[in-house]
């Protein structure tokens, strides 16, 4: 395992932080979806990004994963600039989108094989790495089954296996446990913790689940109106608000408190579709 951790560390760039943003901003017309965000995520952290619908979490993730160019500001991921060296950034990150994106018409093994080829894993290493990732995620026995026959939790673990296959320095997970039952959620959390301890991966996760944020994340940022409203360790955030405050109270305090009008129609459709696919 030590050797694997070293290999993961070898994927890192030259920066001191896994993610560093300075004044990162994205405008859609006159609307600032992400508004001058300054963020530093150290290597090896499981970092939670919270916020009401429309707070700017997904837009921030899209920029950090090079899917969306920023309007202004700077960001380095894995030591490389997201605008100046997007290809280098892509080689150092893994990504699990909110939607279930594993190809149901392919087997688990074939899904991973496609990723292995797109990430340029050497032919002679592909099989062993795929077997290792499937084994790590507890999917070795289901490798030859079509992914459409998998349970929701299995599909999520397959997607995590895809994302970790090339041993990225940083994993971006957009609401990875949405729609999962409690058992499946805990299995995913356990695998994420192991990814960090065994491979030294940094994990940036967006979630609406306060239990997930509290138990999984070492540090949290709550976004509101495109800005970082507060940042800190879960315990610090709770005690900072009051002796009996829960993380839900912290969220309500910093994320606006009232009924959120944020998010858009397509976002709601996506969430419902994911929940439906998970059964």
């Amino acid at each position: 395992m030590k050797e694997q951790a070293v290999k993961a560390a070898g994927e890192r760039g030259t920066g001191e932080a896994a993610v560093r943003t300075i004044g990162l901003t994205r405008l859609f017309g006159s609307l600032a979806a992400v508004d001058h965000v300054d963020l530093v995520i150290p290597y090896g952290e499981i970092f939670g990004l919270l916020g009401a619908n429309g707070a700017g979490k997904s837009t921030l993730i899209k920029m950090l994963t090079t899917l969306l160019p920023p309007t202004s500001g700077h960001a380095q991921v894995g030591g490389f600039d997201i605008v100046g060296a997007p290809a280098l950034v892509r080689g150092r990150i893994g990504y699990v989108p909110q939607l279930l994106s594993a190809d149901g018409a392919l087997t688990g093994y074939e899904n991973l094989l496609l990723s292995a080829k797109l990430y340029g894993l050497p032919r002679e290493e592909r099989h062993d790495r795929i077997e290792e990732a499937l084994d790590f995620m507890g999917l070795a026995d289901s490798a030859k089954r079509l992914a459409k026959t998998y349970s929701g939790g299995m599909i999520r673990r397959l997607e995590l296996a895809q994302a970790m296959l090339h041993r990225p320095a940083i994993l971006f997970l957009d609401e990875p446990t949405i729609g999962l039952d409690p058992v499946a959620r805990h299995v995913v959390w356990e695998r994420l913790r192991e990814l960090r301890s065994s491979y030294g991966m940094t994990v940036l996760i967006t979630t609406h689940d306060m239990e997930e944020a509290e138990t999984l994340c070492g540090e949290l940022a709550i976004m509101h109106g495109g800005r970082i409203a507060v940042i800190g360790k879960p315990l610090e955030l709770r005690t900072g608000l009051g002796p009996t405050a829960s993380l839900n109270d912290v969220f309500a305090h910093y994320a606006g408190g009232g009924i959120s009008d944020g998010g858009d129609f397509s976002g709601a459709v996506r969430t419902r579709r994911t929940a439906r696919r998970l059964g």
Partner: protein
Amino acid sequence: MLRFLRESTAIAQVELLKLVRDPTEMFSRAVQPVLWLTVFGQVLAHVHGIYTGEIGYLAFITPGILAQSVLFSAIFYGIAVIWERDLGVVHKLLVSPALRNSLVFGKAISAGFRGLVQAVVIYGIALAMHITLRLEPQAILGVLAAVLLGSGLFSTFSLIIACIVKTRERFMGIGQVLTMPLFFASSAIYPLELMPGWLRIVARLNPLTYLVDVLRGLMIVGGVSMHGLGVDFAILLAIFVVFLLVAVRLYPTLVE
């Protein structure tokens, strides 16, 4: 170059695998060319309403129907891409370090597989109807190459439309608006000489005309390519390359 080939092949292999596992779409798409040849073609051939020179009308429209099948199956390819975007598959592909041009080219090649299946179906129907086809290996290989090129061209065009309109509902509308004019403003079912002057100009700007022309020159006994096979292939290739360049620029905007 090796990287480009490896990544394009990976995308195309996946599509081929899915096609083999679930060929339903292929069979359903084969119904339309069967109807065009056995119903429309037979009736028009009996009427003798369209003069097609030495070759019979059925033989004349066979390459046109193949080109039409290629167009119809490729032009709605963009819907699948929008669906992939909605599922997050496009996000995942674009977050990978794979070259954008390999992703787009891989998609075009996989559309080509669907075109090849159409070609096999139409060869089968045409032979069953005793239409005199050229069966020399070089002629058949030329037809398959043209079908691959045509499928790639129209599927990439479809991808461009998908990146512009972004939703399935809008795409369906645009797709319907485009297919029939592309089909009727070509030499698929009647010679260019029968068209009024303005339509002939439109037809000469239509890539389908060049696909029909190359197929007509290679597929049927006595068929002649009006522009010359080299010119047809060169024009199709040039348009394909331009579409590829545009699609590579637009594909990432699909997830913005």
